[in-house]
């Protein structure tokens, strides 16, 4: 999964690392501000 992601990203190593970092930040923001509040309101934590 991650190897595939690394392969399909364009650019050199640095560009790929930056893209992966940006992707990870977007995923983290979605989790923190949307998925986790929904889960804590729904799952009985």
């Amino acid at each position, binding site marked *: *999964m*991650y*190897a595939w992601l690394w392969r399909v990203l364009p650019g050199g190593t640095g560009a790929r690392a930056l893209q992966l970092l940006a992707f990870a930040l977007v995923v*983290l923001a979605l*989790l*923190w501000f949307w998925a*986790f*509040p929904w*889960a*804590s*309101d*729904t799952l*009985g*934590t």
Partner: protein
Amino acid sequence: MLGVKLIGPDTPFCRGGTSVIDYSALMRSAVKVSTAIRVVGEACLTGGVIVALFLAYLLWGTGPRAVRAQDHFAAQLNHSWQAKPPGARVIPPAADRITVALGQPFAFLRIPAFGAKWRFTIIEGTALAQLNVSPGHVPGTQLPGQAGNFAVAGHRVTAGNPFWWLPGLRRGDMVYVDTRYDTYAYRVTGRPTWVAPSDLSVLDPVPGHPGARPRQRLITLITCDPAWTGTSRVIVTGVLVAVTGKPGA
């Protein structure tokens, strides 16, 4: 070596006296298995990271969310209390003038034993969506000042840990409820008690006596114990000892 067929009497796969091993097929199968194992492993690692992040959110993310919600509710209450109440020819007792709507604030809760600045709003409802942003009034129980039982539930941990110190309340500690019209002062009547989550008798107008006609005006504060679990509920009960009207209310 790929695609080479080895033939010999001591090779493991025999067919009519000869043995054949298709190494390319074996390699394809091995690649499929290793890919599957890698994908499953990465999925497990990803899931573990997400669970760890969720725990971090519960620890550190719910507090700021509750603070924002409290600021919003407090501003909403202060704004609505400044507006003129709807006119009426006969003004009913103040407690009966309180209106509630699910998820909406209608009072402030202050417990000086928790700190001079400790104050949370009380909103209507005790579903997770409400408790995650504020202590909530248990629907169906009485309102502040009414004869019977005004029950308020709150999270022990997360959402700003509003009732973290609840098990520490003792007889004589004061609990104040500020509504649009009055401030209700309740005095805690005894040490906290622990009940099962299924024990709803603590919510009766006369706790433990369903159907009994209430003579006292009680407040019941409820939270979870031990922290992070729903094993038990901590119950603190107080009785109304004073009502202070607000000027112009």
